[in-house]
């Protein structure tokens, strides 16, 4: 095959595989529309849509504030604990939203541990509760915001670090105060990166079922499942899911087109990294609290509650089942992480190598799997695997349905967005003049990728593997339906107990999810610590 054709065709080939299960879901749109639609319109659809909107808007605002302000604080100032906060701020990424939701009700229900403790300390009556009820949309907004803000923090932080000191100094000289430098100059400049992170947050919020179901908030996604499970109408459920998919898709393409290109990269040779101001006194305390509170709510608090639960039951923690599900979880996430990163690298390279506006726009559709509720994706996936078995493999004695291949493919489609966001933003910082020079020197295709881009993108590649891993460790609904016989992951074990609200038993596997999720996070943190040019 001609080299150029290979790079031109690659994104299309991947797009076909990635979109097949989604197209199976979307194909429901050309089928019949049942009378349940008029019922939905008349009674519940408005509630589903409006609560999803409130949820997404609330989470976006909170995540933007937490993510950018903490990133700005740790990149611009020096204060006590800063070196720890810099990496600890991503710890909440290891807590799945549904687990934070479970621990929240364990703490803040009327007779939850936090309210009990408060009553004990303040000597109050049983009828009073200090902490408000969290089983509502506000509770859900807090849960998503404090588990997902690290996506925005990560991209903001690396973007802030890459902002030049001279730029900020000029701004200060022109009379802007520190706050104005932040929101008038630094913030607008990192807009594309932040929006990329925010898209991930929005997609994850929209596709979640576990947390909103636990809080009894009726969102569009709970509506999809209610239609499927309750009205026994999978056709309408798929149509609803398709609408969700299309909305996110349109949003995504519009966001991409509005970005423009190249305005935000700095290949200024006089670039010098920013220097941090040292803070003392109440300013240092404020900075400390700004960073500590998100970590406390999103990580420390749920861990404490989980440990309390696990402590209450005597579990044989390290039994055979636990070890095998930990092994399954870890190896699946590693394999998925490497496949996703490899694909994202190849595709971003091919877009850069053979740019075309069309490919560029449609390659962003590859990321859309992230917005699909895992179970809906899994349903499309089962169908796809069955087709593959019937059409491709029927002669051979091989079945991919119910095999790990199907499961890994579903994970890859689901989490590709994470790998892509990291590699794409890495590429944004690799100046395209490098490519031109290497082309002039006779290097092209694979050799340009392997000897020039890969070394430059090492951090981004590793980040993408780790982000995908931390997400796969938490994945539940697709695993439940696609897994082979007798195959358990930690998320499955947690769910099995938690679905019966046996939180004491669910705590041990949940802690293990967090611990395994911490492995990639710790690596990420390490990279964050060493990614400061000034240190």
């Amino acid at each position, binding site marked *: 095959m001609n080299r150029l054709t290979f790079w031109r065709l690659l994104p299309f080939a991947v797009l076909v595989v990635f979109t097949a299960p989604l197209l199976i879901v979307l194909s429901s749109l050309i089928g019949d529309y049942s009378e349940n639609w008029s019922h939905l319109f008349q009674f519940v659809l408005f509630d589903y849509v409006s609560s999803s909107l409130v949820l997404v808007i609330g989470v976006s605002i909170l995540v933007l504030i937490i993510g950018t302000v903490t990133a700005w604080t740790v990149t611009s100032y020096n204060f006590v604990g800063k070196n720890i906060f810099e990496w600890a701020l991503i710890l909440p990424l290891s807590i799945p939203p549904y687990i934070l939701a479970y621990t929240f009700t364990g703490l803040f229900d009327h007779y939850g541990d936090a309210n009990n403790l408060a009553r004990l300390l303040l000597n109050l009556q049983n009828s009073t509760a200090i902490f408000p009820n969290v089983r509502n949309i506000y509770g859900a907004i807090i849960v998503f915001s404090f588990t997902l803000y690290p996506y925005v923090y990560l991209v903001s932080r690396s973007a802030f670090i890459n902002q030049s000191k001279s730029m900020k100094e000029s701004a200060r000289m022109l009379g802007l105060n520190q706050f104005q430098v932040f929101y008038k100059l630094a913030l607008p400049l990192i807009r594309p990166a932040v929006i990329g992170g925010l898209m991930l947050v929005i997609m994850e919020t929209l596709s979640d079922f576990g947390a909103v179901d636990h809080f*009894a908030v009726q969102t569009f996604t709970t509506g999809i499942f209610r239609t499927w499970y309750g009205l026994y109408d999978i056709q309408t459920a798929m149509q609803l899911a398709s609408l969700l998919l299309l909305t996110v898709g349109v949003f995504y393409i519009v966001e991409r087109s509005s970005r423009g290109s190249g305005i935000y990269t700095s290949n200024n040779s006089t670039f010098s990294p920013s220097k941090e101001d040292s803070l003392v006194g109440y300013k240092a305390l404020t900075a400390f609290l700004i960073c500590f509170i998100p970590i406390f709510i999103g990580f420390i608090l749920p861990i404490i509650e989980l440990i309390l639960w696990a402590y209450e039951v005597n579990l044989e923690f390290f039994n055979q089942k636990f070890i095998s599900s930990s092994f399954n979880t870890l190896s699946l996430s590693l394999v998925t992480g490497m496949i996703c990163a490899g694909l994202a690298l190849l595709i971003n390279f091919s877009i850069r190598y053979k740019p075309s506006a069309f490919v560029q726009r449609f390659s962003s559709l590859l990321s859309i799997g992230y917005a699909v509720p895992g179970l809906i994706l899994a349903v499309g996936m089962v169908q796809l695997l069955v087709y593959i078995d019937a059409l491709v493999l029927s002669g051979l004695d091989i079945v991919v*349905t119910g095999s790990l291949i199907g499961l890994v493919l579903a994970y890859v489609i689901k989490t590709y967005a994470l790998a892509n966001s990291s590699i794409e933003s890495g590429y944004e910082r690799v100046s395209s003049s490098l490519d031109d020079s290497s082309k002039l020197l006779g290097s092209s295709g694979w050799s340009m990728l392997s000897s020039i881009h890969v070394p430059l993108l090492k951090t981004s590649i590793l980040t993408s593997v780790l982000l995908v891993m931390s997400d796969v460790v938490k994945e539940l609904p697709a695993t439940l339906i696609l897994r082979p*016989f007798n195959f358990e992951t930690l998320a499955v074990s947690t769910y099995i107990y938690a679905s*019966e609200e046996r939180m004491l038993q669910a705590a041990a596997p949940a802690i293990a999810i967090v611990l395994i999720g911490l492995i990639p996070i710790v690596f990420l943190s390490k990279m964050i610590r060493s990614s400061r040019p000034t240190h």
Partner: protein
Amino acid sequence: MKKIQLLLIISLFGHVVMTNEVNVYTSRHYDSDDALYEEFTKETGIAVNIVSGKGSALLQRLKAEGVNSPADIFFTVDAGNLWKVQKEDLFQSIKSQEILKVVPENLRGPNNEWTAIAKRARVIFYNPDNVNEKMVEGISYEDLANPEWNNKIVIRSSSNMYNQSLVASLIASLGEENTEIWAKKLVNNFARKPQGNDRSQIIAVANGEADIAIANSYYIGIMLSGSAGEDQLTAAKKVRMIFPNQDNRGTHINISGAGILKNSPNPTNANLFLEFLLSKRVQKYMVDKSYEYPILDGVLPSKEIASFGISFKEDQTSVQKYGELNPDAVRLMDRSGWK
């Protein structure tokens, strides 16, 4: 890395076919069931392979897999799910006389497509410290719509299949119109927006947040056993359980049930498996662990559950009605504002 590659290669070849096995898709996932499966293997030499998940999702996988499905048994905790599989014509009829002899007709599919394995009742809980026993004597589901219970009832969301089955059974008994009037009044009597699972409702009643909770019977057994922690044990000791509608058609019951799939590769083993689950010894073991009610006469429920009385009048509505009427029940609850 080698190991992972190996793992992937093995799984690529999919399900390794063994001759002596039974493959179960189940939406029941109790630890005690695992022990049962092990016991079955020990006795018969037949390995039990499990995929557990939501009933509706497993049904979707079954449908997609079609004739190639490796599954022998579909095991689930709600009659509605069994009815769905039956309607898709994925079950074969159970022929075992041993099973047909012991399971009453209203707890089987119309052509013996499936059979109940255990029963649970949807009952009422109250706290005698807050509610006069006279008020709940002879109470029925219908009574809960009365104004005296205004702001006093807790029940979980209408997305829950146990509530959907309960409302479906009411539609079967009272008709859709009457049930809708009832549901609207019931929603008016809610003490709070539906939230949490059955256990949270019992705890709310124990703590005096509400007077009446509607929940499944086995939850109180789990709570009383102490396995769910000290708090739940204390809460459970505060409440009483009563069986509604004892003066007329009886208390609403639902089932855990299973059937043999049409394309079952191991139908003989599947049959043995069902017979095993419906043997006296296993029934006793199962209800002692899951706090459900047994299907077999002469087997007693666990002592925690038996303390609330071992015999009560059961609603004889055929459980397959729950499946048939489930979508109507959900639409009715939507119209009534039952969140």
